[in-house]
């Protein structure tokens, strides 16, 4: 029951907000902030209670929903959490109040609608991570996407319409492809129960895997399906960008793990070389893209392509370290890139520009902003002691065990990341103040510090005590890894483990 309350509390708050008068923005914001904070508290409680060492689903809620005609498949309203989704739920729950808080600065018009869509989106996102029925999953998937069209289309910046259409086309394409997979899977297996499908030991058809994988790859995005991302990010309002980077992209990586690797281990093993290549090339490709950008927000959007390449790389290494790193890096990317987008939003609200050349010397005028900016950049470039390093290290180590080549390609991302992020840092913070108007900028205010502080603390916490998070996910991931080993062992032994693993066994 707890999960149901967690999932639908934001929707209930959305309804409340819809009923309240639109004039009183302060009240609307207070309601939204209160509701999202409550959800964050519940999410944290769920996290603390979650048994990390045990594989399998916990806190499952189930009630009959309806029956699919034709095949007589009962669809259940089924929610539950395991070691993969727990981190995603916590990330979503924690980011939301901060996103609401950040919107105070840049959403001044149509506040009511804005908060309404934001809260609807939260229910959708939590539902995606918690749903244990394919039909329900698909339902939440769509629910979480629609609000973003509005967030970008209404509150976005100049080229928002182009960005919205592009995002929409990509998303619809992905959703339709996935729908085909969902339907075929349900009718061929006679069940829509995710738990049952995961427990299935027989080999599911590879083309269904492909349909899921394609849909999720668009969402992540895996190259070459990434070009919607830079536009959507750049045009979205700050809160939209934070949610897009922090949570929506994770729906893609979560999907790849849950409905790709976990549900189709046979196909995933076969497809792993492709995804390793795409992940590693994506790291370099995204970094090169970021290097060429002159718009700070676009640069960060491109860096997401690179960073998510790490996540894909780690997951498809299909090793213990790779899987752990991949899942942890989903959280890390949400934190660091979320922070980066918040910071860009704050400086945009003051300067009304995102052009790198319009900044310069802000460290002198906004020292607190500079402090947060530098810490965030360091988290993003994977400085040890902060969160990014732990994830990247496990990913690259895990990948090395599966494929030294792609690991080495991925390692170059460590160099490239420093190049484009430090260049951005220098252009924004350092050098002389060239533009007179930048001399009088106000430094961060209390609200801005308060909304970033929890994320910075998390970045440090994960950097220093990552096992708090790894521990929660290890049980599920290790079971998954053992399953993959079984699949590999059952298959052609020559096609299986890497030379390193062989040598160690021998």
């Amino acid at each position: 029951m707890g999960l149901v309350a967690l999932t639908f509390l934001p929707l209930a708050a959305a309804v409340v907000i819809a009923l309240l008068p639109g004039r009183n923005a302060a009240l609307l914001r207070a309601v939204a902030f209160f509701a999202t904070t409550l959800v964050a508290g519940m999410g944290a409680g769920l996290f603390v209670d979650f048994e990390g060492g045990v594989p399998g689903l916990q806190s499952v809620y189930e009630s009959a929903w309806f029956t699919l005609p034709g095949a007589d498949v009962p669809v259940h309203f089924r929610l539950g959490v395991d070691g993969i989704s727990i981190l995603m739920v916590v990330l979503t729950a924690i980011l939301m109040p901060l996103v609401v808080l950040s919107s105070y600065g840049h959403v001044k018009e149509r506040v009511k609608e804005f908060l309404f869509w934001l809260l609807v989106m939260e229910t959708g996102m939590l539902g995606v991570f918690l749903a244990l029925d394919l039909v329900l999953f698909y339902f939440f998937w769509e629910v979480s996407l629609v609000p973003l069209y509005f967030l970008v289309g209404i509150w976005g910046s100049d080229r928002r319409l182009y960005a919205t259409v592009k995002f929409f086309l990509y998303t619809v394409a992905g959703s339709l492809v996935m729908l085909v997979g969902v339907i075929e899977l349900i009718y061929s297996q006679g069940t829509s129960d995710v738990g049952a499908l995961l427990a299935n030991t027989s080999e599911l058809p590879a083309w269904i895997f492909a349909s899921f994988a394609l849909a999720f790859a668009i969402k992540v995005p895996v190259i070459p399906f990434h070009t919607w991302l830079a536009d959507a990010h750049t045009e979205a309002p700050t809160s939209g960008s934070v949610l897009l980077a922090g949570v929506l992209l994770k729906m893609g990586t979560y999907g790849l793990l849950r409905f790709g690797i976990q549900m189709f281990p046979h196909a995933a093993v076969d497809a792993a070389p492709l995804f390793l290549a795409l992940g590693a090339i994506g790291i370099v490709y995204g970094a090169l893209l970021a290097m060429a950008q002159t718009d700070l927000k676009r640069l960060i959007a491109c860096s997401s392509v690179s960073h998510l390449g790490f996540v894909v790389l780690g997951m498809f290494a299909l090793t213990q370290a790779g899987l752990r790193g991949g899942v942890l890096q989903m959280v890390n990317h949400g934190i660091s890139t979320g922070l980066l987008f918040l910071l860009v939003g704050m400086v945009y609200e003051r300067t009304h520009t995102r052009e790198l050349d319009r900044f310069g010397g802000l460290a002198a005028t906004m020292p607190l902003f500079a402090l947060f900016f530098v810490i965030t950049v360091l988290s993003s470039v994977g400085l040890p002691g902060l969160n990014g390093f732990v994830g990247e290290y496990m990913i690259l180590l895990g990948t090395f065990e599966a494929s030294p080549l792609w690991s080495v390609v991925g390692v170059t991302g460590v160099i490239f990341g420093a190049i484009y992020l430090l260049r951005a840092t220098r252009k924004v913070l350092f050098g002389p103040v060239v533009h007179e108007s930048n001399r009088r900028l106000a430094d961060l205010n209390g609200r801005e510090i308060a909304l970033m502080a929890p994320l910075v603390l998390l970045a440090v916490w994960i950097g220093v005590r990552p096992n708090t998070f790894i521990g929660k996910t290890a049980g599920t991931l290790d079971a998954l890894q053992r399953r993959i080993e079984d699949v590999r062992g059952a298959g052609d032994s020559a096609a299986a483990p890497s030379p390193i693993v062989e040598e160690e066994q021998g």
Partner: protein
Amino acid sequence: MTATWNALWLVPLLPLLGSAVCGVIHFLCLKQRRADPNATGPIGAASAVACASVLASFVIAVVAFFKLLNADGFTALTSSAWHWIDAGSVSIDVAMVADRLSSVMLLVVTGVGFLIHVYSIGYMKGDPGFAKFFAYLNLFVFAMLILVLSSNLIGLFVGWEGVGLCSYLLIGFWYEKGWPAAAGQKAFVVNRIGDACFLVGSFLLVSVFGTLDLSDVAASVPAQLDAHAGRLALAALLLFGGACGKSAQFPLLTWLPDAMAGPTPVSALIHAATMVTAGVYLVVRLNPLFAAAPEVLTVIGTVGALTALIGASTALLQRDIKKVLAYSTVSQLGYMFLGLGSGAWAAAIFHLVTHAFFKGLLFLGAGSVIHGMHEEQDMARMGGLWSYMPRTFLTFLCGAAALSGLPLLSGFFSKDEILAHTFASGGFHYALWFVGVATAAMTAFYTWRMVSLTFFGEARFDAAHVKPHESPAVMTAPLMILAFLSVVGGVLGLPHVFHVTHLLKTWLEPVTAGGDALLTAHTLSVGSEWVLLGLGSVLALAFAHYGFHLYKRGPETDDEIYGSRPEVVGFLSSAWSLDRIYDKLVVKPLKLGAFLIAVVVDQFAIDGLVNGAGALAANVARRLRVLVDGSVKSYALWMGAGAAALAIVWIFGGSA
């Protein structure tokens, strides 16, 4: 063998705490200055806290040293805190270990570090970022201590990258000027190239040992050597690649000269005495791994000799006093790696220690000159300064004598030990030895050229505007202590022809025994050793004399010596044109690649396809007159509704 000693944590944590306090003070100062532009804020508290924290660490380091002294050689003080990263295939702990090697590093880092902190009180006086400077400096000491105390390779890497971060922040300390920030960025990025190698090296170690605990790895090398020789050699080579970045070895040396953009105490502490020697520490720490791969050792020795030569030959022509010292540092670090190349672990650490004394001293002395000359760094506008700043002058002479290897000073013994080991290794190492000797001659020459140009000859500054003055006692006192150490530091490692114990070598024996066991011992006859010592003395004295007297006339001597060969001057003074070559071979192609990816591939190819599809869809939709008002919003809504309708039909239409 190991003794738990939790006080070890205080050594790095006190400076971390100090850094946090100084950071808070910095923001208090900023706040006060906003109210009153002339307010200074409680900066005295910042420097006091910063110096006290490092001094306290030094005291604990001394206690640790005596604890080790009173135990048997293999004892190490340890303290572990928690499991840091459980990656599955390897588990990494947060743990500290102080063995004999760490204790030497601890004393150097906290001892020299403390002196440089004190000196900075005078040097940074009046700087608006005074408290921030001490926050960074303390943070650096913290990271450096983590580097030398961590029990495993990844913990070491935390310090490794942490010192890199502080280096980045401190090089760019005067970021308003623009170019220091660019120099900091270059340092970080070039270091990252090395760090990438480091990471891959660590993966290889995990694949062989299943652990990254430094002492376990070092101890298990012999057992794994037969099965994994190739992989171990590759790991050693990659870790050395990391060392090349941090310790500015060829081909990754170009960031260090640019790093002189930072305040001079930073150059002394980070870019001479401590951080840049981290690569040497790493190799000695894992000496059995490197000893197991003789080819890699040869690579290390060759890179070291080449770097020593590049650095020294470039230093010959620099006019900026800090640039002379920077290239000299590159060159001296090359010597350390030259020593490591023939397995002279203790000799490399010996040179590391003496270099920390004399190069720290020389940088601080140069800072004192710059300070007394109102921020002048060009030696062409100095000259005759000895009478204006006698204490700086005398201490600088001690440092110069030690650097140039004048007999019986610290640098003489440590450099000679490295050259003797190289010579004794024979074969290809004879060539390396020859390069080392030639470099030693150059070192003496450029060092005394620098002394001559700065302190002797006629005054070439504008006496109407520049009134050279001696620095305050807070700056000269550290100079005197370092001068003393530079002169007598040689007692740590007297050659065995003197019939005394090599203190440092004996002290480090338990650490280096593993590596030594894997190498064939090379010995040098007493006669040859005397000959080498004599040769070193004669060369140093001759070239010091030569450089000193030639340059009494002023910087025009450069033209007299090299005047007819401008291309040689251009090549040498730009560190063999490395920056230009990298710009052509790496930087420009990378920028071009980024442009091609962003514009051609992304915008034309991929987006062209997408937009084409989008236009087609919109066109079809328009023809169907589904789009009532042509706005994208309703277009989006229609598409969404269509998708939903399709889904419903599909599910409930149930043809299956």
